[in-house]
């Protein structure tokens, strides 16, 4: 019955302390939270821990939800805060590699008028739409994204995997839109560099 209530009605009831309404909200969003957490941390157990911590935080903070944003935006901000806090606790980001923009694009292969003579950058192998990712490639994708500092990783997952707009990503992470764009650019370049050898060999 509760699941048939509109989301706004569920949230209002849960804010007033209705536990069944809160449980219905959890059922509605648990898959989204788990899926997002897994995309970020690439580890089943850690994603499950994030799922639990997120809903405990939502329970604690639900009265603070002020309807100025979509509920899902607010929920994403709770999850991403949890990811950032956990990452800080492990101090892994302190040792993370710096994310520069390696401009390896060749200006070569052109004559003096700028006409292209030859391709000097190796092409990546084809990735058909129906991809069966090998164990090796999955491992490479996991380790590449785990090397990304968390604040870049969150932008990449929100923008490129969850399909959030730059504006919504900026709201979730409390960043400016130019900061979101810059982090996304660097994250994409970094991940591309990490996969380059495998994809061109």
């Amino acid at each position: 019955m509760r699941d048939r209530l509109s989301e706004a009605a569920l949230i209002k009831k849960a804010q007033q302390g209705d536990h069944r309404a809160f449980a219905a909200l959890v059922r509605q969003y648990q898959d989204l939270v788990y899926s997002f957490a897994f995309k970020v941390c690439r580890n089943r157990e850690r994603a499950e821990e994030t799922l639990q911590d997120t809903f405990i935080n939502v329970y604690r903070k639900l009265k603070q939800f002020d309807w100025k944003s979509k509920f899902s935006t607010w929920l994403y901000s709770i999850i991403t805060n949890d990811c950032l806090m956990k990452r800080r606790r492990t101090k892994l980001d302190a040792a993370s590699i710096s994310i520069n923009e390696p401009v390896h694009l060749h200006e070569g292969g052109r004559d003096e008028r700028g006409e292209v003579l030859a391709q000097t950058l190796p092409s990546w192998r084809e990735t058909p739409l129906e991809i069966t990712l090998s164990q090796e490639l999955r491992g490479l994708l996991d380790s590449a994204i785990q090397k990304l500092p968390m604040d870049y990783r969150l932008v990449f997952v929100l923008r490129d995997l969850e399909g959030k707009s730059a504006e919504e990503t900026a709201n979730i992470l409390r960043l400016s839109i130019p900061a979101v764009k810059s982090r996304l650019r660097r994250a994409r370049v970094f991940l591309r560099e990490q996969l380059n050898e495998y994809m061109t060999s």
Partner: protein
Amino acid sequence: MRRRGVKCSDAFKHICENLDQKLNAPECREIKKHIDRCPNCVAYLDSLKKTILLYREYPHPKLRNKTRKRLQATLKLRFSQIR
């Protein structure tokens, strides 16, 4: 944006930020002209799109039933503590 002499490095920022979107906007005409003629930029753009595609296609595990139950039990315990 410069009207003449767009280089790979000029196209780079656009490619990394927008992939192949927005290339038809009037202010991007010179960038598009460059990318259309530059096999290196085409290869770079293709590799970035494939990077994102690989992450999108990665099969993510589903939430296990035992995890759903554990979550319900944890939250129930919280509710009882608040009462």
